[in-house]
């Protein structure tokens, strides 16, 4: 190492006190996510109308007292639909991420723990999946297996799986030769137990951050597919589907597309902010 270049660990990293405004940001993001989860579990607490009730004479009301976010082309209250859509979107995001993680763990463990051959093989599978940009992969999947919430979850999960798999594999490789694993082996613990109790948790810990942000990403991708008409079919109050149905009316009734999109942005923002906060906590940068 030259004297003119230092790496991050040597630098007196700015272990400054977290400025108050950023702390506020984390609080806001965390609260928003909590509210979202509550809305997903019990939408009736926030929404006062049936998201599917059609009232044609109330069509296209601008946002106002009666309808905070306005009404859509069939007179449905958009605020209620956005709230009920939370359940859909959060469910899809979590399920897709869980699926992606499942695939990633299988692939990553196989690659990281198996011999060179298996590692190459897993590398191949990853290369193939990586050859497509994620939306293109999801489009192909939906093209084959049709649209709907099930294929949507699988397609989104498939899109994010390769990235996670690579990370898991890297982590597994890094962790497998560490001290406590050696110790456990020396103690004669069965391999599965080592994997389950020591290897996996330690390998996964740094990925919690990625997962948190990944849920936000998954929600965006799922919304993109729904927006293209290949995901949750109407009249589902899924945010992407609402955007797609309202797109034709954006010049007359901007509120049909604005609010669902706003919620997607806020969700992604919140998961990113919370994820970064977790990352900094885990790396011990906070004093």
């Amino acid at each position, binding site marked *: 190492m*030259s004297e003119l270049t230092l790496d991050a660990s040597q630098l007196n990293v700015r272990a400054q006190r977290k400025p108050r405004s950023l702390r506020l940001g984390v609080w806001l993001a965390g609260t928003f996510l909590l509210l979202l989860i509550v809305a997903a579990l019990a939408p009736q607490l926030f929404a006062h109308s049936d998201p599917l009730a059609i009232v044609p004479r109330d069509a296209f009301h601008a946002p106002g007292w009666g309808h905070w976010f306005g009404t859509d082309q069939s007179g449905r209250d958009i605020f209620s639909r956005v709230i009920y859509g939370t359940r859909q979107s959060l469910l899809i995001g979590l399920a897709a991420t869980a699926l992606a993680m499942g695939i990633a763990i299988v692939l990553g463990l196989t690659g990281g723990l198996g011999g060179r051959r298996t590692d190459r093989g897993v590398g191949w599978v990853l290369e193939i999946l990586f*050859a497509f940009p994620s939306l293109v992969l999801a489009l192909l999947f939906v093209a084959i297996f049709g649209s709907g919430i099930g294929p949507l979850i699988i397609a989104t999960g498939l899109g994010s799986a390769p990235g996670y798999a690579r990370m898991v594999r890297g982590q597994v490789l890094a962790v497998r030769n560490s001290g406590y694993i050696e110790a456990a082996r020396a103690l004669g613990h069965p391999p599965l137990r080592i994997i389950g109790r020591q290897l996996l948790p330690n390998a996964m810990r740094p990925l919690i951050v990625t997962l948190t942000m990944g849920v936000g990403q998954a929600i965006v991708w799922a919304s993109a597919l729904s927006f293209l008409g290949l995901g949750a079919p109407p009249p589902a109050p899924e945010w*992407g589907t609402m955007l797609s149905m309202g797109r034709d009316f954006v010049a007359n009734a*901007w509120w049909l597309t604005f609010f669902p*999109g706003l919620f997607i942005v806020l969700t992604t923002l919140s998961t990113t902010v919370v994820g970064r906060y977790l990352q900094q906590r885990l790396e011990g940068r906070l004093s």
Partner: protein
Amino acid sequence: MSSATLGNPLLNPPRHQRLKHLARRASLRLAGGILVLWAVATLTFFALRLMPGDPVLAILGGPSGNPTAETIAEATREYGLDKPLAVQYGLYLVRLVQGDLGVSYSQHLPVTRVLAEQSGPTLELTITALLLAWLMVLALTVLTAGRRRWLGRLASLAETVAAALPHFWLGILLLAVFAFGLRLFPPAGSDGWRTLVLPSVALAIPLAGFIAQVTRESLELTLEQPFVLTARTRGLSDFAVRFRHALRHAVLPGISLSGWAIGSLISGAVVIEVIFSRKGLGRQLYQAVQAQDLPLTIGISLVVAAVYVLANILIDLLYLWVDPRQQEAQA
């Protein structure tokens, strides 16, 4: 990288050896890439064959076609849809090797011709978006990194928000405000620079947000390095320091992201081309999927995958070339 490491012969083998090493890796990667593409072509072929519904009806103009008996029989024979699956696959591979991607069901044109016509606008869009994104990144990070705290935090917030914006929402908003409302730009079309502005901005902003975050972090770290202090004491202006010295180091993580960035841009192009009614491979792929146009879907997917794989290989090689320490670590 620093001048000290450059001098060390152990860490920096002579030029022709590096070239040979690089060439070997390049050919290995390329061979691997071709195999990957073959696997991709096979997978997509078989998978799309499993789709429900009769492709003949898709060929004959869809729901308002009202085809007759003889018409349908003709089409089945013409497109070879009555042969067994394995034979169709074999024929398909043979033709693929010869560069014949088949005939699109929905457009009755050779797929290669559709690709030739539609690739231009998409390339235009993605390259413009990438350049715009980098411009925004450079402007934002160089001007605001390491300065007053509130400026940095504001910029950081802007980047986070930008990265969180979904393409489709941003596209619609830009369309509504700038094309419908203010009428500054045309709302549709693929010719002329004016139709390029809104779509590329819609693609560039989220990408810029993402790359800026990484570059900012890297730039701020770099600015703290002692060599920067030395440069400053030698009398270089702040701007020159930032731009000429620090940036080159800070930009490396951003470059490594470029591979992923191209993938993200292609994905975004699908949605953006649909929203802005632009000619291009993205919109074409979407319509091909909707119309269950098998040859066209496979053709576009293959081309996209090929470009993506190639781009990633090139970027990896570029990174290797630029940073010999990487080579050493992998050897």
